[in-house]
């Protein structure tokens, strides 16, 4: 047997002898591998699932180009990192003789190549997909609506474009707000996709068809679920035939592409440059964002920063755990290695003992940790699925039954590499230390003994009594043994502090990045919002529904807001100097020359102001909460407003030339108008195109006070580049009067009623639930109803924030396992290693109460030192992160995190005291002698 083999053999024997220690180390390494798996495989699985969820809306493609010709198609196929392309064509509409629904008399004809059916999430309900260009599948809703058609029947189509022709010549414009379509009088315009069928003609307009030359007779081979892109009120049922290579019936067609998104190239820009028309390119932002790629570099950086953030924290937590275990066994290991050293083992061989133990355990832990990691991911994702689906309210009810694991070779390699690095770092220092110690020191067991003398600790004795002195001495005179537990507690606190800070910061960043445009966020506790435009033809329905809500005994509370966004302007001096200086700074970021800056500055002749009117009761509460001037508030004739001073401007609010990366600038003082000062507000009126301040559409409002989001936390909060003011219902009534003066159009003011149900199991709740689904699917007829869940899911920001919060909570829980294991191991090791000391103290007459008091002092001392270490290390980390993020996204003030420290300290305190006292109770033997005779632990 060679010398090295002997060292390894002895190491194996000691590993067997110290089963508890070996198991703890193994468990720690398994946890570490599990966490690495969760980061690398879990990230891919989660993102893939989110991507799949996101693809339920528009499909699995990343970028689509419309009306592409053959030449452009060939160029698109040659783009670097294209993973695949599918083509489709829109053949417009055709008469559908079999239709039994008078409002849907057409087929909306499309042609897909074979792969496009999957990419566009086309799901069969009956039959099969088309296999040649003469076969077709039709939306099964046609049959549900009574169409007399079945698989095997034939359908003849002759496709046409739909045109809507105005029959009025009054100079007005017909508005179709839900279809984003405006028809000026006397005009003939092509109907947008999904435009409903109102009959051949109405009082105001009629429909004309222009045949495009696509004619064929198709055999129906199957029926499909309603595709996500089809509106329920569309004039035609979707019908899709197979698009064979070279058989496109139209000159142009659509190309959808998937890319290798890991390359982080700007594919949208590439496609735009080929198609040469911005409006004909669409990116599937949701899918791209969850693939770690987005047109905005900031999001890509965020995804990468998060991965690095996770891995670094896991490595730190794991290194401390594994290092601690090796360090705790240092004396025992030094004894047997000393023996081996005395018979010729070299320093290298001694070092190899530590590495051998570490990597043997890693070898066992790798498959275990990986499998456990996959299970955790699977279980975690399955458990979180309902919540994630809920966050993506719009996609809830999708056909994804279970989350499938996404195990890639890169995921496995990253897990292995980072696990090996972690174990190597953990074993390096103990190995180096053990390699340096001579055989005699090892055998005598005084390898780590200090020669320092200590005077009697009278100060501790005087201040904290005998127990305090004993605790103080054991902490300060056994520094090496205490260091491990201090490291364990501090790392636990650091993980909690840094991760919580990271979550809060990332959420704030994402809110800024994704919601850089104006939003008003109601903070009321509500289940549904009903909304309409003031003066709209649905206004009466809204008022009636509000009355019904107020009268229903199952409704706990109804609050109302009146919101005017982009409907009012004021003179530019209403906005503060701070605002205009940030505006200029943004121009500098775009590198505008002085002449251009002056040009844009001169164009700033108006400042947009957004209004939110509150019902009188809520307005009074807001006025009180913000300390507004009561005399102004009470005087309704002055039209009192409370100005929201917090705002933000970003490089994406106004774009000058090529879009630069997002930089956000918080503004602390949006307006410089003083309390009591009045200013004119010009309201938008359809009749008045030549607006000037001081005309009959102006109203003067008076500043009654200022508000911050913090003060408004229970009411409404804002995140906007425009000035928001809060006012009462009377002001909004006056505004609506001016907006509607002399014209028939509704005011640009949204009326919104927020209802909170006390008892959600009631018919009214069911009705609102159904109406909210209709609103979501674009099928609302009249007042719009939003459920809170669907409202929250409206923006990608809230979806991303929710996903990040879920991910980080899971991460904190899993990392806490390592930290708590480390803490438990260190605390248990400390107690177990001092059993003899406790027995001596008991034999000297120390009572249990005194022992507990001593332990409490020890915990207090350990905690104080750990807090110091955690704060000293976490604070610079947080500051560095803040500085980096500020450079990345602009002058955004980071969240105040003092509460994070308090929470982390409290959790660590509870954990340390609980583990110490429970372990002490478990380890304590009634027989003092048994512990006194203990030679070693």
């Amino acid at each position, binding site marked *: 047997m060679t010398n090295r083999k002997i060292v390894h053999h002895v190491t194996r024997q000691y590993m067997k002898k110290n089963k508890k220690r070996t198991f703890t180390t193994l468990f720690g390494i398994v946890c570490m591998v599990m966490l690495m798996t969760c980061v690398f495989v879990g990230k891919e699985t989660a993102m893939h699932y989110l991507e799949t969820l996101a693809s339920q809306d528009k499909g699995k493609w990343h970028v689509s180009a419309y009306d592409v010709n053959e030449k452009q198609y060939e160029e698109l196929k040659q783009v670097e990192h294209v993973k695949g392309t599918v083509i489709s064509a829109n053949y417009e509409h055709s008469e559908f003789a079999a239709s039994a629904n008078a409002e849907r008399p057409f087929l909306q004809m499309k042609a897909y190549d074979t792969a496009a059916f999957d990419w566009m999430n086309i799901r069969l309900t009956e039959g099969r997909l088309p296999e040649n260009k003469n076969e077709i599948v039709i939306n099964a809703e046609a049959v549900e609506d009574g169409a007399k058609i079945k698989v095997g029947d034939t359908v003849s189509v002759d496709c046409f474009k739909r045109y809507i022709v105005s029959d009025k010549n009054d100079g007005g414009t017909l508005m179709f707000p839900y279809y984003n379509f405006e028809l000026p009088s006397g005009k003939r315009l092509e109907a947008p996709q999904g435009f409903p069928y109102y009959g051949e003609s109405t009082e105001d307009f009629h429909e004309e068809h222009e045949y495009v030359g696509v004619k064929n007779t198709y055999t129906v081979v199957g029926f499909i679920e309603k595709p996500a892109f089809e509106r329920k009120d569309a004039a035609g049922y979707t019908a899709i035939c197979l698009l064979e290579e070279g058989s496109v019936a139209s000159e142009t067609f659509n190309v959808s592409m998937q890319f290798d998104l890991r390359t982080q190239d700007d594919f949208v820009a590439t496609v735009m440059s080929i198609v040469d028309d911005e409006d004909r390119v669409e990116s599937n932002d949701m899918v791209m964002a969850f693939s770690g790629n987005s047109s905005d570099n900031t999001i890509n950086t965020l995804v990468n920063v998060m991965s690095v953030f996770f891995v670094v924290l896991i490595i730190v937590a794991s290194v401390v755990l594994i290092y601690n275990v090796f360090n705790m066994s240092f004396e025992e290991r030094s004894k047997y290695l000393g023996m081996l050293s005395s018979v010729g083992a070299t320093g290298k061989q001694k070092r190899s003992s530590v590495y051998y133990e570490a990597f043997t355990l890693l070898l066992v832990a790798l498959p275990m940790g990986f499998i456990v990691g996959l299970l955790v991911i699977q279980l975690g994702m399955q458990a979180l699925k309902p919540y994630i689906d809920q966050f993506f309210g719009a996609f809830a009810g999708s056909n994804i039954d279970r989350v499938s694991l996404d195990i890639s070779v890169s995921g496995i390699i990253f897990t292995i590499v980072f696990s090996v690095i972690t174990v190597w770092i953990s074993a390096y220092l103990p190995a180096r230390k053990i390699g340096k110690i001579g055989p005699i020191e090892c055998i005598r067991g*005084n390898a780590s*003994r200090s*020669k320092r*003398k*200590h*005077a*009697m*600790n*009278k100060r501790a*004795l005087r201040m904290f*009594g*005998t127990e305090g*002195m*004993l605790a103080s*001495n*054991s902490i300060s*005179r*056994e520094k090496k043994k205490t260091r491990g537990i201090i490291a364990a507690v501090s790392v636990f606190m650091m993980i909690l502090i840094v991760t919580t800070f990271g979550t809060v910061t990332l959420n704030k960043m994402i809110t800024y990045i994704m919601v850089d445009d104006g939003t008003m966020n109601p903070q009321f506790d509500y289940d549904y919002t009903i909304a309409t435009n003031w003066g709209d033809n649905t206004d009466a329905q809204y008022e009636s529904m509000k009355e019904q809500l107020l009268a229903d005994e199952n409704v706990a509370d109804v609050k109302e807001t009146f919101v005017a966004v982009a409907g009012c302007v004021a003179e530019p001096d209403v906005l503060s100097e701070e605002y205009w200086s940030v505006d200029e700074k943004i121009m500098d970021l775009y590198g505008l020359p002085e002449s251009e800056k002056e040009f844009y500055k001169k164009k700033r002749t108006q400042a947009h102001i957004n209004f939110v009117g509150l019902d009188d009761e809520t307005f009074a509460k807001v006025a009180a909460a913000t300390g507004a001037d009561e005399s102004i508030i009470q005087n309704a004739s002055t039209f009192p407003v409370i100005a929201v001073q917090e705002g933000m401007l970003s490089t994406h609010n106004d774009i000058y030339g090529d879009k630069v990366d997002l930089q956000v600038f918080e503004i602390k003082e949006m307006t410089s108008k003083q309390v009591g000062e009045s200013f004119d507000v010009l309201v938008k009126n359809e009749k008045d195109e030549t607006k000037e301040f001081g005309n009959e559409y102006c109203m003067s409002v008076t500043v009654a006070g200022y508000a911050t989001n913090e003060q408004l936390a229970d009411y409404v909060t804002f995140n906007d580049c425009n000035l928001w003011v809060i006012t009462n219902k009377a002001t909004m009534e006056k505004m609506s009067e001016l907006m509607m003066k002399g014209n028939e159009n509704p005011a640009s003011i949204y009326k919104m009623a927020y209802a909170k149900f006390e008892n959600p199991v009631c018919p009214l709740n069911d009705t609102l639930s159904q109406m909210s689904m209709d609103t979501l699917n674009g099928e609302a007829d009249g007042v719009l109803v939003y459920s809170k869940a669907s409202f929250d899911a409206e923006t990608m920001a809230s979806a991303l924030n929710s996903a990040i919060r879920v991910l980080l909570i899971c991460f904190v829980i899993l990392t806490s396992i390592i930290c708590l294991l480390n803490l438990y191991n260190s605390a248990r090791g400390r107690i177990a290693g001092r059993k*003899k*000391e406790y027995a*001596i*103290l*008991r*034999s*000297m*007459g*120390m*009572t*249990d*109460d*005194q022992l507990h008091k001593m332990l409490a002092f020890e915990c207090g001392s350990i905690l104080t030192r750990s807090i110091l270490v955690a704060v000293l290390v976490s604070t610079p980390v947080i500051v560095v992160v803040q500085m980096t993020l500020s450079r990345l996204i602009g002058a955004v003030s980071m969240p105040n995190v003092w509460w994070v420290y308090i929470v982390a300290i409290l959790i660590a305190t509870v954990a340390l005291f609980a583990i110490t006292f429970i372990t002490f109770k478990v380890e304590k033997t009634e*027989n*003092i*002698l048994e512990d*006194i005779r203990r030679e070693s632990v």
Partner: protein
Amino acid sequence: MEILRCENLTKTYGEGNTKIKALDNVSFSVEKGEFVSIVGPSGSGKSTLLHILGGVDKPTEGKVFIEGTDLHGLKEDKLAIFRRRQIGLIYQFYNLMPVLNVDENITLPHLLDGRKLDQERLDEIVEYLGLSERRNNLPSQLSGGQQQRVSIGRAMFNRPAIVLADEPTGNLDRKTGEEIMKLLKASNRDHKQTLILITHDESIALQADRIIYIEDGKITKDERIRVLGGNNND
């Protein structure tokens, strides 16, 4: 004056076939100021007896009275307090607190009693034990003999009713062992300190006033070799 009395002490370990009787109906008493050696072969039960007398182990049957107090009738905390005030324990392997220096180890039972540090008494004991130069040393920085002297100082500091020493020289070389015995005898002689000492070294046992022989858990012989209060100088 009787300071310690034990009645029918029995200690058994295990059950059934594995049952071992470490002490079998042991009774004796000790007078104040007496120096008693307990001798016997390994496994005879002498250490068990000493630990029961010191209140760190419990008898299966029987009673121990120190200055009239039924030691094992006391609750755990009361027993701990009694131990730190009335009993001084000296172990073969010293059992000092590794994180306390010489002064702190010696004063430990005194401080545990919540009393103010008696600096005069400490200086006196440290001087007496010849540890003046080592007061700030931790046990790991002391020799075996020095550690045992600290252990003696700790046992003596509170002027206990009785000092129990479990083979105090067993871990020391002959010369150091003799020095330790001198200290113990001097304490017994000068301060009328009652001392019960376990040894299997006959020459040490013979230095006592009385020798109790123990074998298989039973007292086989209880022999007075010196008259109490007589000259027991070397």
